[in-house]
């Protein structure tokens, strides 16, 4: 299988040094992009590659860049969303700590494509040690002339800053991230205007995920068609998946788009732990609908297959659960997370997640009442699609899908049902 992003992972951080990175083929794409390409050509190349945003929503990257107006009164910005806080996801961490220059090179090329002279890496506060790695790497890039004034004699200036977040999930939402970056409370912004028009400090801004930006040098070096050919027709290239849960070898794996989910679990991850049966799997981080074992068999890792099964590829956090797992408890855990991380801006998310969690807590104590499962489903329904940003949806979707697919785990928590179950056991 072709590895694109994880080529230097076996060095275990050796590539953090710019010399090693250059030896292993780094900073080849940047001179090529600056000298042989015009900004529009880079955008075209990325469009050809069918690269889709790796942060969760899967929006076409080339399309996003082309929304940035060419002429702008205010400075344009590129922001790298490294606020990786989705439970079950850890791919960006490895991309940044094993190969920071790959990201930096990708960011410089992307900034050149949209005509931005300043970029920010907004990194999750808990990744404080990676922030140091990135800062060192940025300093090295400045020293080598890859950043700063007149990069490689091309006349293109670019400055890069690393900015840590303060530990809020909501700041992974692109507009809340911008607010936080400006030094304000992390609340999502009203859209429209979208960040591509009015973003950071009022300037047109592109916000991209770490993985998306890290792909860009490879697209420039090998061409968009090459990258597209790695994956499927509509989902180009490869993608990193963080597999966690009941598998023998959890970790980050790069597989081409369209790779079967079961193959990832069986081959790369060494199968289910203890030889137990698969019960359920969350394919894209905690906020996407859950899959049953049967559905997992049909699933291939690309956006279309995910959509056809009613779930999403999200940020690529594959959470595998075996037959011993109580889906009620995992859903309760997820709900607690969203209740804790809701920013409090809008009514359905703030009040809805609190109420959801209160019902979950009661059922957790086996004090559920008849109708509670329906109540949970209805509350989630009232949050879904009504909240200000996607966090409300993210809180509601796992609950609804879990109830739909694993209703028996929820029914057991109803007090009267428990009595029946115990009587039957006696």
């Amino acid at each position, binding site marked *: 299988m072709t590895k694109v992003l994880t080529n230097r992972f076996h060095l275990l951080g050796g590539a953090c040094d710019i010399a090693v990175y250059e030896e292993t083929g780094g900073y080849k794409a940047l001179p090529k992009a600056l000298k042989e390409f015009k900004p529009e050509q880079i955008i075209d190349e990325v469009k050809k590659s069918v690269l889709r945003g790796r942060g969760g929503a899967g929006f076409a990257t080339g399309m996003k860049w082309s929304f940035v107006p060419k002429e702008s*009164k205010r400075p344009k910005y590129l922001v790298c969303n490294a606020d990786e806080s989705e439970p079950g996801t850890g791919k960006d961490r490895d991309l940044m700590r094993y190969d920071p220059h790959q990201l930096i090179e990708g960011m410089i090329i992307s900034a050149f494509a949209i005509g931005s002279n300043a970029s920010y890496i907004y990194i999750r506060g808990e990744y404080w040690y990676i922030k140091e790695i990135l800062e060192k790497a940025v300093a090295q890039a400045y020293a080598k002339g890859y950043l700063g004034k007149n990069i490689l004699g091309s006349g293109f200036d670019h400055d890069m800053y690393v900015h840590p977040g303060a530990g809020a999930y909501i700041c992974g939402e692109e507009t809340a991230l911008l607010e936080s970056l400006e030094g304000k409370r992390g609340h999502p912004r009203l859209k429209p205007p979208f960040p591509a028009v009015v973003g950071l400090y*009022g300037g047109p801004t592109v916000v991209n995920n770490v993985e998306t930006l890290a792909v860009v040098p490879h697209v420039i070096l090998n061409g968009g068609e090459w990258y597209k050919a790695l994956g499927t027709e509509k989902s180009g290239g490869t993608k990193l998946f963080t597999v966690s849960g009941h598998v023998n070898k959890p970790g980050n794996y790069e597989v081409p788009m369209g790779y079967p989910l079961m193959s990832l679990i069986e081959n790369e991850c060494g199968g289910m732990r203890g030889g137990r049966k698969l019960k359920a799997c969350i394919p894209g981080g905690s906020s996407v609908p859950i899959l049953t074992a049967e559905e997992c068999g049909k699933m291939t890792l690309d956006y279309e297959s995910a959509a056809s099964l009613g779930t999403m590829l999200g940020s690529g956090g594959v959470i595998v659960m075996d037959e011993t797992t109580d889906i009620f408890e995992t859903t309760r855990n997820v709900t607690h997370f969203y209740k804790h991380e809701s920013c*409090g801006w809008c009514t359905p998310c703030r009040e809805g997640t609190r109420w959801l969690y209160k019902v979950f807590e009661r059922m957790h104590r086996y004090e559920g009442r008849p109708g509670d499962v329906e109540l949970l489903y209805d509350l989630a329904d009232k949050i879904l699609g*009504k909240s200000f940003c996607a966090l409300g949806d993210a809180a509601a979707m796992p609950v609804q899908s879990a109830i739909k697919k694993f209703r028996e785990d929820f029914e057991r928590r109803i007090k009267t049902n428990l009595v029946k179950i115990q009587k039957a056991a006696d």
Partner: protein
Amino acid sequence: METVKITINGQEVTAPKGELLIEACEMNGVYLPRFCHHRGLTPQASCRMCVVRVDNPRIPKLQTACTMPVTDGMVVTTESKEVEETRAAMIEFLLANHPVDCPVCDRAGECELQDQTYGFGEDRIRSQYEDKENHLERQISPFIYNDPQRCVTCKRCTRVCEEWMDENAITVLNRGSATVISSFGGWVECSNCGNCVDVCPTGTLLHVPYKYVARPWDLKQTPTVCNFCSDGCSMLAGIRSEKLIRTVARDGRGRTAGGINHDFLCSLGRYTIDFVHSKERVDRPMIRRGENLVPATWDEALSFAAKRLAEVREKSGGDSIGVISAARLLNEDQYTLRRFADNAIGTKNADFYHDDDEIDLASFFRNGAPAIATQAHLQNAEVVLLIGSDPNEENPLTAFSIRWAVRQKAARLFIVNSVASRLERQANVALRVREGSENAILAALLDEARIGEAADAMGADADAVRTIRKAIQESSRVVVVFGDELRGAAVEALALLEDVLPALDAEAADAARKSYIDALQRQVKSSNSTQKPSINENPYTYIVERPTLEVAAEPARYETKFSFVPLVRYANTMGAALMGMAAGEKGGKSAQAMIQAAGGEIKALVIAGEDVVGKANGHASTVGAQLAKLDFLAVTEMFLTDTAKLADVVFPATSFAEAQGTQINNGLQIQFVRRSIPPVGQARPDWMIVSQLARMLGADLGFQGQLKNVFKEVAATVPGFGGLSHNLLANEGATQIRLAAPDRGTINAADVRERLAGEVARVNRSLAVDRDEIAAQAGSRLKNRYPLITRYSEMINPEAPATEEGKAVPTVFPA
């Protein structure tokens, strides 16, 4: 106004272009429920109550109507199962952790959460098995109570605090479901305007004086006009059992007094009404018997006063009697007092009381009235020039309008002032000039060649002065707001501005305006390595095309390039001047001169509603001694003030809540003041007391005891009041008085310029004193005038450390 056609629930209607959908629906009779939306605030879209289905352009999700500008051909559904279910769900969510303690909540009855639950909520409850998360209620300022559990987190209060008042005193704490409205430190340090309480849709924020006092449905609400400063805000006076309980600009049901201030009111109008029912009110007439003032009947007191006044008149002539009125009294009072002086007593000495800290209206109106700007004009100005005064402290509505102009309309604000002001944060250029040198800015505006000289006098940067002059030159709508610091020739010179800096032609003005907004949008303020905007950044730098948040109902018309807001000190100074209660019209003495001449030329005084002793600050004993020399002193008052204590007869007068009549604000707008409660005790309105006294003196003023007759005569005789009547004003609201514009031919421009130059030169001459000491003295003037309300000035400009002991502070400008 440009309109578009939209379809609401299958019915085609029209709406103003660019209007928010929620407002467009309301205009067409479809009310959408809302908590966070407020017309005067930036859109928030957080409560999700106003969701609608937009079918054209087709949008997959339900949309919030409070953030959607209407476009032509828009098709909207506001009544359908999904929309109604969503609204009901939002109400259900909000009530899930709400204490539902309506029986003990002061907001109950005018609570938007209550109303909308009845209107749009479900009749069942599903959250009864969950424990509620409680928060303790507490008082967060002397006037504001906070009960966080009732909060629906609409953030109207924090937005009001930031956008209207620029105080940022209250804010949101914590995250998610733990979100509460509070402040840093738990105690709110602010001007206590109370606007946050008024806009609160629930009982989260409450007025402390109104707590547990009345239920809203027991209140009779009368629209009336505030009496505390010259802005003249309308307000609703809430009456229960014939007692004034509270005043608000807008109650929880959205009922407003509908005045020039819309939903805005300041701490003075809101929290200083408790004097009306004070136990210390003089509730019956009093006559001096020896050392003491003893209660008497009205007949006794009136005949006593008439007898004594007649005696004085007989002995020393009519001109030995003076009449002094308070500038807060209504037009009808002022006019009757004037008639009383003319017809009943026959004296030329009649004046409204003012110190040298009142605007020189005589100079201002000398050659006719320059265009006066109303609040609507101010809010739509392109350039606002503030000279002297601090509207934040003295005229809060004017300060609000200035902030509005800057924040919402990208106006340019220039300040020339000797005291610190919070408005400086919004200013493009804020010149902190030497005390007493404000006149020099007029010299600089009138004559470019004098900029250097004027800048020297003000101690300001000549380039900054040049910037101001250039900006004014290239704008087409300039509002000059000035305080009493401008004196003499400078006030007269204001009328010359129109000729010296004439309006550019429309194209050039447009181009200049566009280039300014363009520059504003390009502007990126930088601090350290990253480029961060300041908190008070003009939102215009981000987005220009905001949905309309027009406070003014219709755009104000500007007839001239320059218009003016004279920040007079008292509620009806303008009225008093127009009613002829100003000295000098007939060659009489001013109020100050009358007090000076007491015992000499002046033998008796009739003082209506003014505490001349208490207002004399440093030399109260001198004024007291002067009054003691009088043969006779009659006072109409609400309280036994220091002046009333010296009087021979005291008549109990009504307060603003008990009086009816008209009042003129600093925008020259006449407003109708309604009587909201019956008189306290035996109090009578001043006009009635005086006309009864006149009758006793043998002169019938001809009003037949009818207030309407007074105003009828005013309308018939006073220029500019023709066609006005109480009925008309009660229906129309604020109406601007049209006075004759200045006759350019009669202005002796050369003379004005010469005198102005002389004043600048005088300031320059007296500059021998050390500059640091002048700077240290700045701000002392405001502090002397208002010892209690200088908090912000001190915060911005902390007092200079005390100089060495015994060192005399040099006198900067000899009087």
